[in-house]
Every structure is written in C-alpha cells, then in structure tokens.
C-alpha cells in the first residue's frame, strides 16, 4: 500500500483515539475527513480489499436498522464485517468506518462491508465504495430544505447507480417511488414486498405518488400499508407493483410481530410495522449476494431493533420510551405505536430545526395527529427550538398541550406527578442529548435518592 494511504490511516487513528479519550463526539466522522484529505483515493483502495461483498444501504427511513441487521447476521456466521454502525452515513463517516478498521500496514481484514449511505451522498460514495449490492429501503419526503423533493432523491440515487451498473439493486417493490427509481436504472433488480395488511388502523400519512409515473393516470391500490406503500397498479398503462422475490407471509401480531420468511416462521421482539420491511430488505440483500443466511431467523428473534437510538428506560418505576421521528411518515408511525399501548400515558414532543433536523418544519402539518386524541393520552407537552410550531399545529388539530423549555425538568416533573408511562418523541438533533439525559436520570435514580 502506498505511503500516502498509510499516513492517512495513521492520522485517522490518532484523531480517533484523541477524540474518544477527550470525549469529543463519537469519533465517527472526523477521522474519515482527515484521511480523505490526505488521500482522496483511500476509500476505493480499502473497499476493494473486502474479501467477499460490499453492501450499501440507502433510502429515507430504515437505513440504520437494515444495515444493523445485515451486520449482525453476517457476524453471527463468524464473518468479519466493516460497518458504519453508528449511522454516520455521510462520506466522512463511511471513510471512517474503513480507515479505523485497517491495520497499521493499511490492510483490511474483512469478509463483508455493510455501509449505510446518506441519499444525497450516494453518488460521491458509490463511485469510490463500488458496492456489489445497493439496498434502497424506501423514498419519502424528508428534510426538504436540504434534500429536496422525492424526485430529486430518486435522481440522485439513479446518478449514483450509474457508477456501479453491475451492482444488484434491491428495492421495496411496494413503494412506487422506489419502483420508479429502479425503472430508470440498468442494474439488475431484486424486490421485496408484503402481500397482506401489516396492521389495522395504521394511519396512511402523505402518499408521495398518487398518479402513475409512467402515464399520469391515477394509481389503484388493492392494499395500502402506509404512505404510498402497498399493492398498486396503473389501470391505464399497466405499470404495477412487481411480484416480490422476497416476501413476508402469515403475518401475525400479538404484542410483537411473527411471520414466515423464506418458508420458515420467525418470532420477533418488535412491534413496529415498518420493521417487517426492514427485515425483508436485509434478507433480500443477503439472498442476492449469496451470503450465508442459516442464522438469519435466530438472529432476528434476538435482534434489538432500537439500535440503541430508541431506548427504553425505567425511572423511579416509570416506563420511559424514547422515539425518533424526523419526517411525516416516521412521526405518524411513532404516534400509531403510542396509541397501540392501551395504558395511560404522557407524551413529550421535542422539535428542533438545526441543520441536522432540516430547518423547514412545515412537514409537521403533514402528520395526522388523531392518535394523540385518544383518551389514554393524559397530557401532551411540547419542547425544542420549534415547540411553538408544534403547539400551533396541535391547537389546530384540537389537541391541547403545554410547552416546556427544559426536557430534563419536564421528565422529572411528569414522573413526580405520577406518570408511570412516558413517551418522548424527538427529531434528530435532540436524540443523543435526550438519550444521555435519560441515562443520567436513570442511573442517579438507581443510586437511591428519590426525585
């Protein structure tokens, strides 16, 4: 390996050690940034050392979960996997995952690489990562001030795929947007989908595509899951949902989801409808690259779908669930899950508008808040930089709420007032901080003193 690459790796590792010792950030992107500055070719150089396959995961929702399933399943087979498991999916984060996995000689010892890639970074990353397989989870509206319309996202991923025309493209065939994206690519396509209803009363939310992308006629749905996902076809030109190569059957929900995948039943620990899709996405990716899958089902049955990002806490006996909601379809799913829990509950919603969140909060008005007007929801509190936007939105939906400046005091106050069941919904920038606050309160409470 050339000296420049080794120097890049050396510097990246020093920076990583320094940043973790000094507890400055997670060290997930700065090392990659520096390495790429020293050697712009570093990613392509390291990626081609992966012995078997490189799998990239992109799309709007479910990237981190899908990538995490891939990584866990492969590792369960005793394989070595490079993965940006912290969800650092911008180019620097991807480079970090590789340089930190390299040894001092600049060599990579890995069978697979499973890499989550931000939709807008796909072009710059794919051209260097050169994945053998690209999984697109779905395309929904998300951070429109940064990302743009769904058509823009589709075009960006299509451009990215031109760099890897042989890569196996895995898409959610139930998603018209993904089908539209795949239709304009030359890549071989594998699809997954679900032929039966995931949940009753699942709010559909905004549908990104209502009219046929091919001819403009109104699409017909035999089954709607949520958003534009479902079994769809165009009655005029015949454009239709592809028959899925991989699908879930005999879906059964009793607290958690059970279903049959590739002929074998699987009993999971998750209750989120969208995680059925994420599981299928991962299976389809492994299937098409012919990776080992014997342990897929047992891994799934034990898998933590929260990725440490959506944790549950117990604070003075109260159950506290943290949820991430960063776009309308995600928010709506989280509200549905809150409603599914029949126990009385309090809800705290935190909305920020930093660059990480998207500065435009108009998407809040695309969410259906019906699930919050259920009698089991005792109180709703709003917080964050844009709390007043959230408050206003709820006012026009006829849902009363109070606003609070400090999340820590709010949580402690609610528990002090007797809340036994608390849900916290936050968008992206508040996630890590809220997690840290909850961890701290939980450990202090375990230490003895009452609130």
């Amino acid at each position, binding site marked *: 390996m050339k000296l420049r690459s080794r120097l890049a790796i050396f510097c990246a590792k020093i920076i990583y050690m320094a940043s973790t010792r000094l507890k400055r950030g997670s060290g997930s992107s700065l090392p990659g940034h520096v390495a790429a500055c020293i050697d712009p070719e570093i990613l392509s150089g390291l990626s081609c050392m992966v012995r078997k396959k490189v799998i990239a995961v992109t799309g709007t929702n479910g990237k981190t979960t899908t990538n995490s399933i891939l990584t866990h399943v492969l590792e369960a087979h005793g394989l070595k996997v490079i993965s940006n498991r912290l969800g650092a999916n911008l180019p620097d984060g991807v480079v970090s995952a590789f340089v930190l996995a390299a040894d001092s000689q600049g060599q990579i010892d890995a069978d697979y690489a499973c890499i989550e890639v931000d939709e807008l970074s796909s072009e710059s990353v794919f051209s260097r990562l050169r994945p053998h397989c690209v999984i697109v989870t779905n395309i929904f509206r998300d951070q429109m001030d940064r990302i743009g319309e769904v058509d823009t996202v589709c075009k960006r991923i299509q451009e990215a795929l031109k760099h890897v025309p042989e890569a196996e493209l895995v898409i959610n065939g139930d998603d018209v947007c993904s089908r539209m994206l795949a239709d304009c690519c030359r890549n071989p396509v594998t699809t997954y989908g679900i032929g039966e209803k995931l949940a009753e009363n699942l709010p559909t939310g905004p549908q990104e595509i209502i009219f046929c992308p091919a001819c403009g006629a109104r699409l017909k749905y035999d089954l709607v899951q949520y958003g534009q996902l479902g079994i769809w076809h165009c009655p005029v030109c015949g454009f239709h949902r592809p028959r899925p190569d991989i699908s879930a059957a005999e879906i059964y929900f009793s607290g958690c989801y059970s279903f049959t995948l590739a002929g074998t039943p699987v009993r999971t620990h998750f209750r989120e409808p969208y995680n059925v899709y994420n599981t299928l996405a991962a299976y389809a990716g492994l299937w098409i690259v012919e990776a080992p899958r014997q342990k897929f089902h047992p891994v799934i049955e034990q898998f933590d779908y929260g990725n440490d990002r959506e944790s549950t806490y117990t604070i003075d006996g109260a159950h506290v669930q943290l949820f991430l909601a960063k776009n309308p379809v995600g928010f709506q799913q989280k509200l549905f899950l809150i409603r599914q829990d029949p126990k009385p509950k309090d809800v705290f919603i935190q909305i920020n508008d930093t660059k990480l969140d998207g500065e435009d909060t108009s998407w809040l008005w*695309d969410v259906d808040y019906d699930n919050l007007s259920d009698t089991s929801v005792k109180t709703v509190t709003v917080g964050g930089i844009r709390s007043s936007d959230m408050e206003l939105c709820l006012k026009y939906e006829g849902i009363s709420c109070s606003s609070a400046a400090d999340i820590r005091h709010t949580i402690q106050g609610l528990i002090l007032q007797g809340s036994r069941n608390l849900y916290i919904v936050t968008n992206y920038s508040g996630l890590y901080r809220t997690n840290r606050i909850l961890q701290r309160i939980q450990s202090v409470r375990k230490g003895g003193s009452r609130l």
Partner: protein
Amino acid sequence: MKLKIGHLYPELFNLYGDRGNVRCLEKRLQWRGIDAEIISLAVGERIDFTDLDIVCWGGCSDRESELAAKYLTGICRDFKAYVEDGGCVLAICAAYQLLGDYYETDRGKTEGLGILDIYTKWAPERLVGNIVLKSELVPMPVVGFENHSGRTFIGGYSPFGTVSSGHGNTENDDYEGLIYKNVIATYLHGPLLPKNPQICDLILKRALQRRYNTDIILETLPDEAEHKANHQIVIRFPT
C-alpha cells in the same frame, strides 16, 4: 354564514404542509361560529368556480406540475373569471408560478395559466430559508419558509411584502410575492396562515364580504400561540 373553501388538486399540490392553510381557514371560521365547507377539487373533476369563496393552491414538484398542466388548461378560463370577479385565492410556491404566463427552466418553457402577467425563470441556486416580510396588508410581520429555484418577475403588480430577512421573488429585489385583487401569491410556506393569523383573517373577511355583500367585522380570537410562533421567527431572523 358559511364559506366554501376549495383545495385545488390537493393530491398533487401538497408539498409543504399546505393542508395547514386550509385547516387554518376552516378552524378560524368555525371558532367564530361560521360554517366552513372544504371542497377537495380533485384532478379530472369539473370545478364550479362560481360556487367557491376561497381557493387554496399549494406547492408541488416539477414532475407533478407537468402532470397537472393538462388539467389546468381545462380550468383556466373559469379560474380567471373567478379572480377578476374578486374571488379569494391563496397560491403558494408552484401555484404562484403557475398563475403566471410561463416558467422557463434549463429544460424548456412550461406555460402557466396566464391569469397574472408575470413570469418565472429557473436558476441553479435554490433560495432556501426562513423569511420575514413587512406586508401592507397587515400590521404583524409575515413569517414563513421559502424554498424555490424559480425567480419570479412581477412587473407592475404590488408585492405581497417587502423582505426584512430572506430572499423573496428573486435574490436581488426586496419584494416577495404579489397581490392582485383578492389573490395572494407567495413563496412562503410553513404553512403560511397559522403563523400569520392576520393574513388568514383578512382572506376570511374579504371572502365573507364578497359572499354576503356587506361589511364584516370578525370576532377577535385568542391568538397567543399564533403570535408566539410568529414572534419566535421574527426575533431569530432580524433585518
């Protein structure tokens, strides 16, 4: 009393929480004991503009706007007559552009409805961000979010407002949007009306006056939440 609010092509023009504008008009009527009927004007259906009091029209993607074009030609004449007769229109983003003569991009020229004698030209740099205006229509500052690559040239029309913070119709002039008779056309979403209740009430008042042909004084509503949300943007994005 009652108003009929038409939501034009909601399935195509729904990009930036635009249904919030319709919701705001509806609620602020109902809170005053005035009936509101929301009519979803779907593509392909016949629209009776003479029956409508307010038309809300939102933003959409370029692909969807091309899709809408064939339906729009069919409603052009009636829509224009409605505007000339003083019908209230709230047109946001793509709808604002489509009211004009044309939208010229690097890929060619899209014809608009030609109801307003304005035109829009595409430029590669998108104008994105929070925006604050001073509008002659209302005392409160008008706040919203803009996100557009089109630059709209409004000729001799009055602007909707003067830009205090943000971009506006183009990056080089101080104006945003336009007003013509009872049309308000603007790039501001957010959505526009909930955070600018005075604009909402102005539209309601004008529509009621037109429908009932009498002077209307709207009952004052408790608007603390609206004012707070408006004020937060004003102080964060000073001139």
